[in-house]
């Protein structure tokens, strides 16, 4: 029973408000600048592991912390802004709130970067207690500054989620924001208006995002209290659980923010609307309930953890994949199947991103299976799957969105196609070296790796270089189009 449609964005009309394109464009430019810089940092780390350049261990771990924390915060901003671009039309969102939210995250990122680059703070972006306090290679102030930075990232994301949730409640109500009115007729509005898939995704992200931000706030405040008063007791197991609740879920939510973008953009390229129906309501309610419970799969090797939590963590991880595999990705494939698809940079990257989401998801599920985790945990298999998910999934959606936003009506010129190929070849080779290292048992997060880590890192560095060249060329093409087309094909000037 199809009750609501997600059509091409042009179908919505302008009465719901307009997108302040400068904010989206500015965020994209800042975000891509950060991605490029942090990607270079990643490349330098890879080169150091491959014995191509020399870094001290302290510098390596500081850069590792910068790369991880920076990439997560940047991808949160990029996916949030891309989703917001479509939601503003549907929910009358205020640009001032987005500006405030992005500023808080960027400020937090700058504070964390100062702690890392000036202070040498380097316990990794998951900063497992008590390492930040016993690192011995960074000053005490850098620990506090980093935590303040994380706090601001959490606050910025919380502001974004609160504004989203408040607007959804005003426009639809929480239950109808999840399209539960397609299941329970008593909830139906008099005007028959049903939330489109982009709004359903936003409802899930807003609620789970607030839970995540709350966990992050409790975590960071506890650590700041311990930093200010070392006698303040902190339990390592509780803190570890909170750390992964916050860290895993906020990283995971970027794909759900991306899903909201996919729902809006694919109809544009295929010329087919995306329907809201019962399946979507059930699917996103399932995601809402189970995505926040997947974090225990990071603690399988903590055998002291409560057994029910270990088992529930695996079950939740499995269940959380069902909506993605059966509804969103299958739905996207069904939308594209035998459509008159316009193959542009945007549509190509969205399809490739869906592929990366699935391939990385399969690797993640294998890792989240307890009997396999004891030979995969903290090996290069972990960065293999999350790089597939974030670089080969979320980041491709962001590039796809940027291309769509800049104006994607003209076919891709041959020189840009060369950069497309370079990007994909570099990315696949780069990721393959991670997988090879994981299966060979090479530990992650090591400045100096055992064999065959250095050989794989050396090859991975070459592929990372190819990837960065491809990315640079593509971004230049997208930027060129953006300038030519006035930043948006929809001409949605403020």
């Amino acid at each position, binding site marked *: 029973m199809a009750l609501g449609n997600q059509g091409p964005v042009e179908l919505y009309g302008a009465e719901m408000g307009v997108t302040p394109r400068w904010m989206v464009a500015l965020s994209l430019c800042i975000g891509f600048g950060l991605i490029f810089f942090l990607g270079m940092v990643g490349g330098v780390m890879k080169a150091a592991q491959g014995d191509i350049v020399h870094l001290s261990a302290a510098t390596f771990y500081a850069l590792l912390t910068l790369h991880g924390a920076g990439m997560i915060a940047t991808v949160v901003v990029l996916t949030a802004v891309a989703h917001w671009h479509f939601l503003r039309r549907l929910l009358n969102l205020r640009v001032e709130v987005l500006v405030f939210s992005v500023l808080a995250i960027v400020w937090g990122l700058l504070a964390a970067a100062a702690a890392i680059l000036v202070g040498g703070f380097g316990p990794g972006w998951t900063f497992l207690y008590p390492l930040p306090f016993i690192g011995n290679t960074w000053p005490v102030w850098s620990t506090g500054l980093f935590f303040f930075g994380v706090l601001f990232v959490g606050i910025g994301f919380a502001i974004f989620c609160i504004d989203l949730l408040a607007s959804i409640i005003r426009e639809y109500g929480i239950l109808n924001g999840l399209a539960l009115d397609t299941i329970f007729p008593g909830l139906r509005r008099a005007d028959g208006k049903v939330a489109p898939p982009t709004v359903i995704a936003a409802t899930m992200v807003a609620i789970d995002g607030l839970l995540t931000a709350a966990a992050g706030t409790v975590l960071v405040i506890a650590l700041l209290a311990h930093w200010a008063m070392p006698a303040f007791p902190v339990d390592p197991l509780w803190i570890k659980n909170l750390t992964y609740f916050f860290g895993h879920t906020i990283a995971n939510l970027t794909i759900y923010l991306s899903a909201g973008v996919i729902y809006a953009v694919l109809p544009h390229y295929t010329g087919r609307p995306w329907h809201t129906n019962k399946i979507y309501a059930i699917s996103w309610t399932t995601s809402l309930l189970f995505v926040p419970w997947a974090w225990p799969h990071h603690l399988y090797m903590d055998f002291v953890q409560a057994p029910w939590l270990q088992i529930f963590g695996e079950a939740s991880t499995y269940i959380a994949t069902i909506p993605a595999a059966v509804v969103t990705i299958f739905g996207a494939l069904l939308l594209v199947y035998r459509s008159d698809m316009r193959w542009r940079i945007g549509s190509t990257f969205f399809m490739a991103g869906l592929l990366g989401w699935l391939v990385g998801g399969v690797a993640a599920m294998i890792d989240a299976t307890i009997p396999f985790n004891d030979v995969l945990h903290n090996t290069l298999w972990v960065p293999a799957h999350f790089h597939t998910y974030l670089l080969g999934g979320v980041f491709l959606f962001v590039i796809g969105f940027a291309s769509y936003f800049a104006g994607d009506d003209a076919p891709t010129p041959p020189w840009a196609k060369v950069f497309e190929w370079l990007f994909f070849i570099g990315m696949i080779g780069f990721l393959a070296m991670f997988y090879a290292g994981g299966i060979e048992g090479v530990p992650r997060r090591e*400045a100096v790796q055992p064999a065959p880590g250095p050989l794989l890192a050396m090859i991975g560095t070459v592929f990372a270089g190819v990837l960065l060249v491809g990315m640079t060329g593509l971004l230049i093409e997208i930027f060129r189009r953006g300038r030519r087309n006035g930043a948006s094909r929809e001409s949605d000037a403020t």
Partner: protein
Amino acid sequence: MVPIVGKQLVILALWLALSTIVVVVFAWVVSSTRRPAPQGEVQPGGYRLRRLWGWFYGTLLVAAFLVTLWTVPYAWAQGSSAKPALVVHVYAHQFAFTMPQKLPAQTPIEFLVTSLDVNHDMGIYSPQGVLLGQVQAMPDYTNVFFFTFPAPGRYIIRCLELCGAGHSYMFQPLQVYQPASAAAPLARGV
């Protein structure tokens, strides 16, 4: 290169097989756009396929979940087979493991693993360099980890959790010997 055997071989085969299926499906969908058809023509069949896929995928997950319940490495899941012949205390600290340097092969060992400072992870690598198992070492807590070394040889105990600037160098050899009588291994704490 380290030989790809045991669980690692199963994992690699599983991931490659499933990823190949995904790539083939995507290639098929992409190539179908050369033969466009109205949405109303393809959608009903797609919805039927989705229903089948949903049931198949759900059943697969339930089966995988149930199988894993019997194969988790935790003491509560291993029943009587978890009875150790030897109890070994392991104290991890920046940047070494305080533990015996020699242990018997083919002897069920109960490792009691904790940390004296930050989080560490005790990874056990075979003489061929294959990662056989691991357990976290956390301050204030003791993780109980059952492990049986399959054969004598020079194993490596390596830290698998970022624990500070010397993390890369936190590994040490462990000599595993053939016990004089495999049928009557030592039953004492070390």
